[in-house]
């Protein structure tokens, strides 16, 4: 298994270089270092000298990929691409274009993102699996059909509707929770989290429930289920003891891979609920053409996704003894 992990980690390096290259190319296809300077310096009284100074201070006065004026390996290393993108492999996120340490920002914002994402993920998983099992329990009845219709309806509605509707009903009309906001201490911030977590749950419940129901329905028709029933097991034990365990493999494929990405937060929910997490950090950086933050967040996202894929592979071995990683 260790050899397998080592090999997967090696595969990750060219993937990450490729991601960096594409991010870099896309960003600089749309923006030039001059554009970035103007964005940071504002629109009033920006002189060519000021732009030149801004670029020189941040190393954007160098060529993008090849430095013809340099010698030897410096032709490649004294470039914007190398200095800005390749240093990420050493864990150096650097500074944002407005001069703040990105690593420090990420550390500060990870907490709020996780405060939303973890409860949403854990409760959501438990809830959707339970609901899917319940629908399977009542398969073929009006309860099952109603459940599917509700699931499809929830899937079809934009999450923006749930956010605005949730804020209006629960915060504005019923006045049960704050409309938006956050407190630095996650233990006292719970009343800010109830609504965004609830909204995220409702927005995601339809699709997951319907998908898990399909998986469980496939399992429930198998012979081992009939055998279990024939042994006299209750329906609940059949579902939890047999159907759920065997249905876990495809569920794990979709679930484990997103676990590391929970750090990255939710773009929409964080923005509307005023949660100072990594999702809103990314959105702000894109709006401000802050390449330093964009590349750091894309790199981080790629790393976390690759970690998620490896964890998924590992989790297969845990739930299915037939699977061996070589």
């Amino acid at each position, binding site marked *: 298994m260790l050899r397998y992990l080592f090999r997967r980690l090696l595969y990750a390096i060219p993937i990450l270089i490729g991601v960096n290259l594409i991010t870099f190319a896309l960003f600089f296809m*749309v*923006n*030039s270092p001059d554009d970035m300077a*103007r*964005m*940071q310096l*504002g629109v*009033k*009284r*920006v*002189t*060519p000298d*000021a732009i030149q*100074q*801004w670029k020189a*201070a941040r190393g954007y006065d160098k060529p993008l990929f090849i430095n013809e004026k340099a010698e030897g390996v410096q032709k490649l290393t004294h470039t914007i691409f190398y200095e800005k993108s390749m240093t990420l492999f050493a864990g150096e996120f650097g500074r944002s274009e*407005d001069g*703040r340490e990105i690593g*420090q*920002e990420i550390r*500060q*914002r990870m907490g709020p993102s996780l405060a939303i994402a973890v409860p949403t993920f854990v409760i959501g998983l*438990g809830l959707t699996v*339970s*609901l899917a099992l*319940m629908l399977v*329990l*009542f398969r073929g009845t009006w*309860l099952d059909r109603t459940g599917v219709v509700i699931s499809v309806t929830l899937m079809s509605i934009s999450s923006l509707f749930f956010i*605005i509707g949730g*804020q*209006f009903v629960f915060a*504005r*009309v*019923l*006045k*049960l*929770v*704050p*409309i*938006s*906001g*956050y*407190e*630095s201490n996650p233990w006292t911030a719970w009343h800010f989290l109830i609504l965004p977590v609830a909204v995220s749950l409702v927005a995601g419940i339809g699709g997951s429930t319907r998908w898990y129901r399909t998986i469980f329905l496939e399992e429930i028709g198998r012979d081992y289920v*009939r055998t279990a*029933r*024939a042994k006299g097991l*209750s*329906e*609940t034990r059949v579902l939890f003891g047999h159907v759920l365990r065997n249905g876990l493999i495809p569920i794990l494929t979709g679930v484990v891979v997103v676990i590391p990405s929970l750090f990255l937060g939710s773009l929409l929910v964080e*923005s*509307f*609920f*005023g949660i*100072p997490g990594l999702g809103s*950090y990314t959105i*702000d950086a894109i709006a*401000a*053409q802050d390449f330093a933050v964009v590349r750091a967040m894309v790199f981080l996202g790629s790393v976390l996704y690759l970690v998620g894929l490896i964890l998924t592979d590992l989790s297969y071995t845990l739930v299915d003894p037939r699977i061996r990683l070589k």
Partner: protein
Amino acid sequence: MLFLLKITGRNLWALLLAALLLPVLTGCGTEWNDPYPSSERGSNRLYTSFSERPKHLDPAIAYSNNEIVFLAQIYEPPLQYHYLKRPYTLIPATLEGQPDVRFYDKTGRPLAESAPSDQVARTVYRMKLRDDIRYQPHPAFSLNADGTSRYMNLDASQARAVQGANGPMALPEPGTRSLKAQDYVYQIKRLAHPAVQSPIFVMMAEHIQGLKILSEDIKTRSDAQPGAWIDLDPLPLSGAVAIDDHTLEITLEGKYPQFIYWLAMNFFAPVPREVDQFYGQPALRRSNVSIDTWPVGTGPYMMVHNNPNSRIELARNPNFHDERYPCEGEPGDAAAGLLVDCDARLPLVDGVVFSREKESLPYWNKFLQGYYDESGISSDSFDQAIRVTVSGDVNVSPAMAEQGIRLQTAVRTSVYYMGFNLLDSVVGGKTPEEQRRAKLLRQALSIALDQEEFISIFLNGRGHPGMGPIPPGIFGYLPGQAGINPVVYTWKNGAPQRRSLNEAKALLAQAGWPDGRDRRSGKPLVLNLDTTSGGLGDKSTMDWMSRQLNQLGIQLVVRSTDFNRFQEKLRKGSAQLYFLGWNADYPDPENFFFLLYGPEGKVAHGGENTANYSNPEFDRLFRVMKNMPNGPARQQVIDSMLKLVREDAPWIYWFYPKTYVLRHGWLQNLKLNNVANNTLKYQRMDADRREAMRKSWNRPLLWPFGFLIAGILALLWPALRAYRSRADLDAFGQRVRKS
């Protein structure tokens, strides 16, 4: 979830009953939707919001409104604007009186203030500082018993302590000291620091004696020691000198009367050397703690919490000097209750909490719930908030009035315009004949594009049609008949009347485009509008524009692009028509006329004259006007300049925006000020009333929630029955037990 399946019928009914009783049992609680910590309830703080995180809080860099709103409460430049008086009047902030301004020729001989600018070799501003001004408590001023700085070499635990949202304020035992003239000198030197990158450096280097040389000196030193902190104190700057601890002298090359306004801006706020040195510590820089994030000033407030992603909090500066609420203002201020606090010591509120709201909906709803004390009005909320009477009077809607919400309006010292790139062959022209035709075309367009309609449809009436580059509130703007743009309006029945479309068509025909077609070739006139718009609202604006021009037979092509490409087009002179705006840096006509000054041409000189307008007579008058004091003579020159730019029509003077602000009844002394930003110290709060209103408006409503729970449980009842009947089946689906 499945535990519910074990609930018996009797238990289920008990649960249903409990759900229904829940509202009764808990409905008498306090407000659950309060977004602020309970410890703040009833406090004398002002609650407001910000949508975009401030990029810079360094007074040498910050230039955007969303940054200055914080800095203006913390820093004190030498001058400030009178809170109530209009036209805007400069008064001392940290000075004992107005600056003593003297003019000298190149032999050093004193000149009179009225001396022609070409004779003035240098201008000296001598300022006497008050001796009772002290800095806010801050660790940078903290000293050990031996006089050395306590926190100049932070250890690991101290460096960790400052990483939180309380930043350097988390360090115990802060110190303070008196304001010195050297602090102003130090800040002026910082403007020249290449690493600081002050946006006004290039402009100030043209005026402040020796600033450019200083910048080169600092650059040499910083190149020799990259990243190291440089002590600016010993570096000479002839243009800024501390004569003694309380006398500051600034020397300008030549004459620049508008400099006085810069002395009221954050760029000229004091920065003590020890603060710069304190923040120069690598441990702090790594933690994002710098003068760019944690300002240190002598103003009424100090920053005590800075999480620019969610909340920024200012608290009363305990060392703030004795400053009093003004006792005189404009006529009507007394009747509006704005002089009630005459001579009261400032600031009147203990703190200001800024919460970040990126979306308008939560922001608006929180205002209605009483969690923000004041609010702007988005287009979405306009109809809910505002009623416009038949006579044109604007007031809050009955629902808002019932909540005690008041409306305040003011025309901003800003101008929005549609510019013509005069380097373009169609709207600018190359030969004198082409230029004559292009001028007539621009005049025709100025008449045809109906700003009144635009303001009514797209701005909910929040604007005044533009009559020239100078907005109301700035010297040179004339209201009434004297101030209309005669190219576009006539004066009828005591009001400006837009000239008819026929007049526009006649001008168009004179320009060689009868019915919008080239007289010679018959080809239709196609104009290109370069814009950064793209959303639905913008599309409707562009559709409106197209329809307006269609009336003249002109086709409009909208070339939508991103902000960077748009700016690039302006720089290269490849745009034809475009929209831009300008907010006043200071209340002087020079700050608007320079946008049309030839040597400011965008393409030729990289300046702010995006229309690339160049009229030698206008430029001559500009040079005369900018050095004149306000008065009839200056007004005469301004009138001549206005006549030229109205006739030449390099812009369509689109509108002067109008600010609408709603405030709750418990917030007093709010008077909109478009130039000054240090206005929070004048606000007064009735915190008890706010608390009472918040309580009455925000009682949690639980009974619908109870019904929701009951509904869910009622749905589960048949599920339970179905489960129980299914549990009675054997492996082949046969019932084996009776329920």
